[in-house]
């Protein structure tokens, strides 16, 4: 008998006033009983609308049936056939706008908690699962992957499973990309990301860190080294600023810098040398997931007042509902319909206030969202000692500026064939934020997967001639 409860089985969380002082994971995950209960809410529909909402096509009803039957390892193996990073996706995917949005149960009540179940299965496997065995026969072909983020790791994993010898080149000292430097520990524990990366290494994927491609080696040199195809997954790592006065003041950070200092460089732990300003009052500018991450991180570093400053209304915020909800619970103050016009500093050049102007919503713009317009004379100041700019990122030009024949659009995004992820240069494929501009982990993974398939076809067809 299916469980006909109209609401999802709740997932336990740390209390808001406890968790906003630590970096432990906020959501604690389902117990075995909770998972079984939630799995029984799935109706196992014949036409599987949820699967069509998943960028990597996880066989959702199948794995959920296994959970309901108590066969967790079986469930894991089903997920693993299409998703190489289930523990990550179960935590950071925007399920509400993907698989869960298509769920039939969502028509009358809440959809099945697909993300929560995916996380449960992945965590179960990490704890109880037998180490995976790989006996893929090497096919003798070499592929290079640039960037060890979600797109690159997915592409590398899929190619390795097909027998390719894959080397991943990463600019930072740690593989993982945004999963390591961007998304905070309390949302995605780094130990989990590391386990997924270690599993890839077990599969035979070589990961070379400290390699800034485009500088230390060019794409041309990779071909000379015997790689038959190159995948570019360099992400969107260049932080945007507003170009308002005061962005050079001490205490103004890009969200990238602020989050990298805390997540990758572990400034929140005493044993690490990384310095960071621990502000009392912080303004975070932006309305996306990165803004929520930065605000909640600032709170955990001990800030008393953390403001989110966003120029539109809450309904227009690009952040996931769950993240907005969590931020509010943790005491983040939302200053909506406000736009910064200047940051003011003291004589030493340290931030002391942010000046904003009130906004109102006008006609819809190109994005379909109502355009914010400044209300004249409504300027006001908020005293803060730090400002974090979380208003988006652009793709990094290092690779495209050093690779001949690689076309990019006016935003600096690499141009690819939508179906094959092939760039304008033969043998070079690209996906993820480097192609789309800043988007989600799962879309990057979907692109990496597609590219792996195309790379395989490309190399196989070259050799069958």
């Amino acid at each position: 008998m299916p469980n006909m409860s109209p609401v999802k089985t709740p997932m336990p969380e740390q209390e808001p006033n406890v968790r906003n002082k630590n970096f432990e994971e906020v959501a604690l995950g389902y117990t075995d009983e909770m998972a079984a209960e939630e799995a029984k809410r799935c109706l196992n529909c014949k036409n599987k609308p949820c699967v069509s909402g998943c960028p990597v096509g996880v066989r959702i009803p199948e794995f959920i049936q296994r959970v309901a039957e108590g066969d967790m390892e079986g469930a894991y193996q089903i997920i693993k056939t299409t998703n190489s990073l289930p523990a990550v996706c179960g935590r950071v995917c925007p399920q509400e706008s993907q698989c869960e949005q298509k769920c039939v149960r969502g028509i009358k009540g809440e959809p099945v908690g697909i993300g929560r179940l995916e996380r449960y299965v992945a965590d179960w496997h990490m704890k109880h699962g037998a180490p995976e065995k790989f006996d893929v026969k090497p096919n003798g072909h070499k592929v290079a992957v640039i960037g060890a983020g979600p797109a690159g790791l997915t592409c590398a994993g899929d190619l390795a499973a097909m027998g390719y010898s894959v080397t991943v080149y990463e600019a930072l000292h740690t593989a993982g990309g945004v999963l390591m430097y961007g998304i905070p520990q309390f949302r995605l524990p780094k130990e989990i990301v590391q386990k997924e990366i270690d599993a890839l290494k077990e599969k035979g994927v070589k990961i070379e860190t400290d390699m800034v491609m485009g500088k230390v080696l060019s794409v041309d040199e990779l071909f000379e080294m015997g790689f038959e195809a190159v995948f570019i997954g360099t992400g969107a790592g260049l932080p945007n600023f507003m170009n308002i006065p005061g962005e050079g003041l001490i205490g103004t950070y890009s969200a990238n810098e602020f989050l990298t200092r805390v997540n990758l460089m572990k400034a929140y732990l005493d044993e690490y040398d990384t310095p960071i300003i621990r502000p009392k009052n912080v303004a975070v500018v932006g309305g996306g997931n990165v803004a929520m991450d930065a605000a909640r991180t600032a709170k955990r570093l001990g800030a008393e007042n953390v403001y989110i400053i966003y120029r539109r209304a809450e309904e227009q915020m690009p952040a996931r509902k769950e993240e907005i909800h969590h931020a509010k619970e943790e005491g983040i103050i939302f200053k909506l319909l406000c736009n910064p016009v200047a940051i003011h500093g003291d004589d030493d050049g340290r931030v002391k206030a942010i000046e904003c102007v009130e906004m109102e919503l006008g006609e819809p713009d190109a994005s379909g969202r109502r355009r914010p317009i400044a209300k004249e004379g409504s300027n006001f100041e908020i005293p803060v000692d730090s400002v974090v700019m979380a208003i988006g990122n652009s793709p990094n030009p290092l690779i495209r500026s050093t690779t001949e024949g690689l076309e990019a659009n006016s935003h600096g995004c690499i141009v690819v064939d939508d179906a094959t992820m092939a760039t304008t240069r033969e043998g070079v494929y690209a996906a993820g934020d480097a192609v789309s501009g800043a988007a989600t982990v799962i879309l990057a993974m979907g692109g990496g997967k597609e590219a792996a398939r195309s790379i395989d076809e490309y190399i196989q067809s070259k050799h069958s001639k």
Partner: protein
Amino acid sequence: MFKIVEKRILNDSMTLMAVEAPYIAKKAKAGQFIILRVNEFGERIPLTVADYDREKGTVTIIYQKVGKTTLMLDQLNEGDAILDFIGPLGKATELEGYKNVAVVGGGAGCAIAYPQAKALHGMGAKVDMIAGFRSKDIIILEEEMKAVSDRLIITTDDGSNGNKGFVTDALRKCIEEGAKYDLVIAIGPLVMMRAICNLTKEYNIKTLISMNPIMIDGTGMCGGCRLTVGGKTKFACVDGPDFDGHEVDFDEAIKRSKTYFDLEKEATREYNCRLMEGAKNA
């Protein structure tokens, strides 16, 4: 891991290290930099490439012991290894086409100015090298600098080498005496580079400076190294580290360089205490 193949003490506070990094050695050019991290808990710090040997696959750095990270680096010896060593980063200095150049170095900056002088000299330009130090006993690379310049002028703040004054005084004298420079390269502390730029502005001589701000990744990702150049925001790591000195907002850069001043001082003090404890117990 990157092995240290040579360690040479230049003076009380400055040390040279040649590090095995074949990929970087193959590509490095004058003006570029590397980022290193001594151990898992350490910071990432940028250091300019002082020299490289493409055959041996080594990259030379020169560091001044100013804070915890450089003190930690200094604990390593030949045969030891540095955990992370990343580069070559930034753009190489564009030296093509200059005929008559003054290369000005201040203190540790001489270590970075020297390869520029060497490159220019090798390209056939006439090079005047002006090097400033606090006093005579901390002068470094004197022979090396002499070998790559037509004229080497060394000044000391305290006059202990017989030539008291600042590098600005020496440069002004050279210009007043008729040197017709088509380029001045100034590398050293921010206040020194600002003083040189103020001087060369008077004479309308193009001046290149090398910025070394706080940064994390060195690839354009964090934006921590941003500075204002000609009214626009630039990232030292990817747009520089060289900039037209007449366009740089030095006041802002000097303030930004002090972002973590107190934290750094405390970390250095603590580390020095621990080193002394260690020495006592040894």
